[in-house]
């Protein structure tokens, strides 16, 4: 059996590794995405005071620390049976909108856009953010730095620091927002909104204006019929900070809608011996292996899943673009994995509109941002939509508030099975009868990158392309060919 190893940053550096096995005919038999990393937060958070967890768990990920900080803050609210004052909830949401804007801008421009702006077949040396300067101009690249920086600044004002925020506590926040800080945020939010509009226009001009890209997005190799999960508000619109978790089936019909506290009734996780990351699946459907369709418990999260799982967006410009996307791509749900990029831009638009609304809220500078807990801590759940999908934190404590149990289902964990399947399908499209197409690396890379996988390497390789090496082995395991993108 032939074997192809795609080792994103090489095995030794590993934050994610892909192995593709060919059968005797030379077609793809199977593909594995392995996560070679584990740090064990569930274990070493035991014994820590619950109110310290919002300061500890952001270190799960330096790219999306804000998601863990907010999920954890909500979790300790729940655990202490305390409801934060309105201004605290608004400030947390404001912080959180800025957080996702930072992450989404970084992903779209630094990782995804070069594929489309320069073209998937462009000279790899040019297919990066610096290469884009020649096509879109240095001003755009400067703006990317500037507005991602704004989003970081907004988080730092509310969270204390952008990377590894500290201000979340059971019952609210450690500090309120001054009028001066609010004005600064409002100005930066307005800038982010203009940049979001520009980004959507750029996507229309560069990607949707080209038939070959639309064909690529809708091609079979990049399509999978799965369940979709995302958080929604009371009107079933996309929500990031708070709401209910909704799952739609592969036909787009509501399968279940549940309160985050009940996640154990709906999700189970499977362990495989070949990866350090577990595989969640829908409990009611069951684990049927790495297959799609209504009989398989595999579900997807992240921008496209969120839009599929909701009925619309809560802000006008985002709603307009939401409708345009589903009209263009043939209605709901959209199964095309690469449509995640369009969905991500629609979310930047929504989040920027929401950011601006919140920054103008007359109550957001209220002094009262903390309700001190009075009840005995027991058990809590905190769920948010992280940039890369639904994130579950669940803690239990003793009477002193010391942690006795932690369970975490992280965004990319939800997508682990689906990413394995997308990689396998993309490989099947690129490898036939032992002939490995030169486009293999790129096709696999694009399948992988659309999810913006966090625990793997893509989000950790922010400003560049994800480097790939593929070795082709004969059935005895001898290296017969090596593909490297330099």
């Amino acid at each position, binding site marked *: 059996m032939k074997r192809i190893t795609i080792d994103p940053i090489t095995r030794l550096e590993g934050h994610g590794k892909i192995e593709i096995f060919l059968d005797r005919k030379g077609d793809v038999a199977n593909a594995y995405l392995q996560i070679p990393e584990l740090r064990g937060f569930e274990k070493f958070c035991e014994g820590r*005071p619950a109110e310290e967890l919002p300061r500890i768990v952001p270190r799960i990920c330096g790219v999306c620390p804000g998601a863990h900080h907010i999920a954890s803050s909500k979790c300790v609210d729940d655990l202490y049976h305390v409801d934060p004052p309105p201004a605290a909830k608004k400030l947390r949401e404001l912080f959180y909108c800025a957080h996702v804007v930072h992450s989404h801008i970084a992903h779209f421009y630094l990782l995804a856009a070069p594929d489309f702006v320069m073209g998937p077949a462009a000279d790899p040396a040019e297919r990066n953010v610096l290469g884009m300067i020649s096509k879109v101009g240095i001003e755009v690249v400067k703006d990317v730095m500037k507005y991602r*920086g704004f989003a970081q600044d907004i988080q730092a004002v509310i969270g*204390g620091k952008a990377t590894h925020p500290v201000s979340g506590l059971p019952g609210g926040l450690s500090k309120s927002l001054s009028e001066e800080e609010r004005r600064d945020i409002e100005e930066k939010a307005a800038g982010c909104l203009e940049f979001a509009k520009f980004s959507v226009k750029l996507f229309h001009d560069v990607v949707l204006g080209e038939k070959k890209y639309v064909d690529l997005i809708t091609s079979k190799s990049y399509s999978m019929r799965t369940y979709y999960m995302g958080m929604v508000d009371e009107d079933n619109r996309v929500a990031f900070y708070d709401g209910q978790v909704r799952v739609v089936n592969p036909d787009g019909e509501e399968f279940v809608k549940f309160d985050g506290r009940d996640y154990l009734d709906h999700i189970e996780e499977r362990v495989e011996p070949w990866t350090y990351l577990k595989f969640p699946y829908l409990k009611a459907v069951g684990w049927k292996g790495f297959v799609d369709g209504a009989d398989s418990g595999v579900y997807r999260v992240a921008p496209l899943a969120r839009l599929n799982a909701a009925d619309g967006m809560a802000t006008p410009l985002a709603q307009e673009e939401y409708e345009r996307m589903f009209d263009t791509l043939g209605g709901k749900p959209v199964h095309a994995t690469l449509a995640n990029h369009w969905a991500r831009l629609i979310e930047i638009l929504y989040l920027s509109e929401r950011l601006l609304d919140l920054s103008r809220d007359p109550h957001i500078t209220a002094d009262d941002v903390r309700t001190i807990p009075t009840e005995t801590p027991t058990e809590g759940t905190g769920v948010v939509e992280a940039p890369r999908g639904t994130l579950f934190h669940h803690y239990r404590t003793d009477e002193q508030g010391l942690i006795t149990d932690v369970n975490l289902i992280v965004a990319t964990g939800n997508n682990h099975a689906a990413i394995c399947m997308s990689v396998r399908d993309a490989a099947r499209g690129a490898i036939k009868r032992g002939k490995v197409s030169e486009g293999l690396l790129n096709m696999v890379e694009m399948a992988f990158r659309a999810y913006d996988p966090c625990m793997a390497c893509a989000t950790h390789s922010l400003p560049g392309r994800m480097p790939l090496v593929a070795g082709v082995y004969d059935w005895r395991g001898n290296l017969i060919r090596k593909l490297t993108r330099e």
Partner: protein
Amino acid sequence: MNKRKLAIYWAATCGGCDIAILDTQTKVVEIADAFELVLWPIAADFKYKDVERLAQGSIDVCLFNGAVRSDEQEELAHMLRDRSNVLVAFGSCACFGGIPGLGNVSDKAGIFAKVYSDTLSTVNNNGIRPKTKVKVSEGELTLPGFHDTVRSLDQVVETDYYVPGCPPPVSLINKVADALITGELPPAGSVIASDKTVCDECPRERDENKKVKEFKGLSEVTPDPKKCLLDQGIICCGPATRAGCEATCPSVNMPCRGCFGPPAGILDQGAKLLSAISSIIDSKEEQEIERIVEQIRDPLGTFYRFGLPKSLFRRTMST
């Protein structure tokens, strides 16, 4: 012109140090201007093989972030040490083990049991555990080995400089970058940050004569935003922590948790903090002192939040 060569690498870490380098905005461009990057997984496409090919001493500077807890991280630490003239432990994980270093309260078996069996959503009746070599129907898959103990970089290889912080703040990264660009480096072994303590930079008002009879957790109180947190009976690691962050956390009404590690001349951060705390306890009676100290609910996870692997304990159980 032959530019000097720079490598940036991450091990057991979260990626936040790399985001912090990006957050310097213009400085990252200056760095790219002054150095030829031979390795930076976050930003550029260089292979492990390319590094392996480099001769000993051919990398001028390597910024290493993350702690060491797997076979491949250990191997890379050795490889980069061999090839680098200057090896910098960048960020708290590389300097002292960081938050992943709290993993030393358990070991591989304990962490695996929790993650792969005992977590509430996990269904694993056969007790499956990830393995370094696994036969699947199509062939064999491998994973790097997972260690019982998390180590700081200098517990694995000789380390020339330390840049603390979780992550290092932009102002400090700018300082480090300037030193690297100009080549005006401090004596080897230096911690590139202030020699003072967080208290020295903290804007809060301290009452030198203040004594406390009670310690409180932040679940119970909202502190007075102007007064010293320790004076209010809230454990703050400021007195035992190196300055350089401009007291970021106390400035947003949160206590310091010690991410910059111990100040100059202090071997064990927790011991230093304990002595600072002892000096403000308002009692002379042994039993009462004991009762007051017991109110500190999680001394290990508070005093050694970022530095358990480099503490005198290193870990809490033998394996």
